[in-house]
């Protein structure tokens, strides 16, 4: 649709000079009335903003903003009641958290933050509304048109190289002993009725490939393996496996410390009852992808999952860690100009073939029907092109904000090698700096975007 709408818009614009097109997403009770106030009190302002009225900014889905840009907006204003004044008590507080994260994500993707303006405007602040519209219009006029909301052509563009770590904090270790212990533990669970199935890793058909296996007989436990190639997060199978085997007995699952965080996520979101599962935690010195230590393992100090029911092996007491290399990579990207960052990400996203492997392997992506499949209305274009891929990847990252446990499965399986882990991590960084939140640690702490504090930061408003 984007192209057609943009075409219509540009044809309409036709002969006259370019004018900033601004979409204003406003709440019914405060800002819409404030805009009304500006009108009834004959307060003139730039005619560049088209208002879309919502009942509350709490309804404001980041996809609305994406859609506006996709359809040719040069800037978006989102505005609602002042903190404490929400008609629905807390909608604007929730919106503030969501927009904080969304803003940082869009900025990381390379959208100029000046094109995304947030403001609190009350029903009596007609003057403030007029000033806001005037100000954004002038800023956007100076910035110029938003440009192409789609991937740039590939010709002549150098791929920006991200910094790679110099050294790995831990070397490869021999895991043959762990495999033996794991097999014994699994066979014992199955033989003694501790579990009806053990979900673990087995050898795949390609060299070094490790694949999930559902072991139901003690004798089959000999097929289980554990080594540093066991990268997959098996918990993606867990809620469904528990549902299907309900009544047969518990489901045992081999987990690393990182995987176990997804179990915490399931418990918090009521997708699982802890008593239905047996966590078989393995002492992990880190997994390797094509021979190199996975980024997520650098700063992992745990080694053995907290709260495991059965522990296989032990980790060295003094465990070497190093800063996660992604922090330096994110910093390198943030040092670029927004336009260069946009180009970097559009090149990445252009490769997205919309296979949805990222969604399929994500333990926390468990929705029965994904927003990407909804078509009435269709918020995310199904076409594997610039706008569709941008909308999909923004939606994925936002839906996992505060829920993503950083297992990096999405990035591992992406056939297009899109750095989804960087998007997730940038969002996680924002949640930590703004709200002091880290995912996967405590099932009793609610997801950060479903809650708020009246004193949450919001300097950008």
């Amino acid at each position, binding site marked *: *649709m984007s*192209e*057609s*709408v943009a075409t*219509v818009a540009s044809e309409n614009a036709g002969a006259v000079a370019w004018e900033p097109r601004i979409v204003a997403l406003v709440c019914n009770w405060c800002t819409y009335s404030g805009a009304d106030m500006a009108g009834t009190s004959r307060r003139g302002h730039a005619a560049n903003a088209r208002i879309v009225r919502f009942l509350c900014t709490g309804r404001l889905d980041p996809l609305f903003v994406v859609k506006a840009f996709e359809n040719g907006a040069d800037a978006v204003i989102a505005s609602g009641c002042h903190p404490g004044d929400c008609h629905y008590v807390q909608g604007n507080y929730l919106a503030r958290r969501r927009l904080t994260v969304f803003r940082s994500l869009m900025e990381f993707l390379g959208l100029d933050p000046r094109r995304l303006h947030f403001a609190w405007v009350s029903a009596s602040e007609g003057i403030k509304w007029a000033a806001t519209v005037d100000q954004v219009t002038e800023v956007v006029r100076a910035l110029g048109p938003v440009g192409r909301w789609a991937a740039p052509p*590939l*010709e002549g563009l150098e*791929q920006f190289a991200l910094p790679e770590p110099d050294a790995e904090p831990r070397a490869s270790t021999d895991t043959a002993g762990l495999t033996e212990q794991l097999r014994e533990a699994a066979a014992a669970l199955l033989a003694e009725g501790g579990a009806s199935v053990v979900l673990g890793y087995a050898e*795949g*058909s*390609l*060299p070094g*490939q*490790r*694949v*999930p*296996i*559902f072991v139901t007989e003690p004798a089959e436990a000999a097929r289980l393996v554990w080594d540093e190639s066991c990268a*997959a997060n098996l918990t*993606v199978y867990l809620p469904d496996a528990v549902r299907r085997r309900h009544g047969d007995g518990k489901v045992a699952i081999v987990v690393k410390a990182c995987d176990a965080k997804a179990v915490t996520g399931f418990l918090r979101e009521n997708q699982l009852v802890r008593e239905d599962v047996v966590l078989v935690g393995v002492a992990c010195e880190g997994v390797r992808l094509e021979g190199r230590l996975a980024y997520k393992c650098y700063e992992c100090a745990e080694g053995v999952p907290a709260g495991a029911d059965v522990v296989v092996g032990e980790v060295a007491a003094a465990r070497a860690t190093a800063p996660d290399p992604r922090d330096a990579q994110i910093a390198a990207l943030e040092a670029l100009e927004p336009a260069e960052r946009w180009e970097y990400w559009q*090149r*990445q996203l252009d*490769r997205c*073939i*919309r*296979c*949805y*492997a990222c*969604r*399929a*392997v994500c333990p926390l992506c468990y929705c029965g029907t994904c927003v990407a*499949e909804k*078509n009435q209305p*269709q918020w995310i*274009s*199904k*076409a*594997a*092109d610039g706008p*569709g891929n941008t909308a999909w990847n923004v939606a994925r990252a936002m839906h996992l904000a505060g829920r993503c446990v950083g297992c990096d*499965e999405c990035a*591992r*399986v992406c*056939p*297009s*090698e899109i750095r989804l882990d960087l998007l997730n991590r940038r969002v996680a960084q924002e949640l930590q700096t703004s709200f002091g939140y880290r995912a996967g640690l405590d099932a009793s702490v609610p997801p950060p975007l479903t809650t708020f504090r009246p004193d949450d930061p919001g300097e950008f408003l």
Partner: protein
Amino acid sequence: MILGWRLTDAERREWLERLLGSGRRVVAPTRDGGLLLFRPIASPDEAVLDYGNTRWSPKEHLFPRAEELFSYRLTADEVKLEQRAPDAVEQVLFGLRPCDAAGLARLDSVFLDGAPDASYAERRSRTFTVSLACDSARPECFCTAVGGSPGGTDGSDLQLVHLDGSWLLRALTDKGVQLVETVSALWEQATDEDWAAAKECQRAVEEEIARTPLAAEWAGVLDGAFGHPLWAAVGERCLGCGVCAYVCPSCSCFDVDDNGSAFCGTRCRLWDSCGFASFTKHASGHNPRPDQPSRYRQRVLHKFAYYPLEHGSFMCVGCGRCTVLCPVGLDIQQTVRRVVEEALA
């Protein structure tokens, strides 16, 4: 008598340069970020010919990931339909592996037999294929199990063989001859010894692949094993993403999607995968393939039972991409062998 030439590397380069200069779009394996993909190239140096295989098949250049069929616009007094003007440029798919070329031959049978698909036919008629015989095998290769070979010519107009630092070029179709007619007179004819050496090299690669062929009659066995309880176990692992179908050189399923409002929008054709739950979901909400094992079974049976029963060849060319890229390592060839073994037992 094989029609073919022996080219030095400089001659091969020069020919590629000439193709680029002829106004044709040359699509060859090249680096896009860290990925090797088929992309239009601007100079002969961009073509990577010393490679295993590309991340996904070149089918997107004939059957795009997303293709606008038409756009519509409602104005005050009319509904305007606009068909996107077909891209009239001739394209050369250069250096594709024999398995990918064979994949195109499979797509041809889907899109061109019977009632031809207009946009595919349009592109196909302007596409030339220059395949590159394999001189080594990767662990996932199994072309020899499904009727292909490292030097297979199915779907190729011309084929290159790398031999001791020079190139053998073999013309296989009239289109292939057309692509070299202005230059072939300058090249040295390849000798019988050259072809014998090429054959020997391919035999060595076949040995390296070391796969027992899947028997043609297994199509019937698999078809009969539709209700076998093993499917539930083999499909249990499948997570329902579309990687296998999207990287596959022979998968051809698509979805038609209207994107827009009542006033303007586009109708697009997009890749689709039988592994998605929405693939067979009815408007009523009923889904005849209600779970992932039944969807995985469909994928396997379409490639190894339904298609071969109708057309004689497997709908799989053995590139092995699905096995490597499957997030949970499902190996389609292994599944076939396992089900057949159980069904015959």
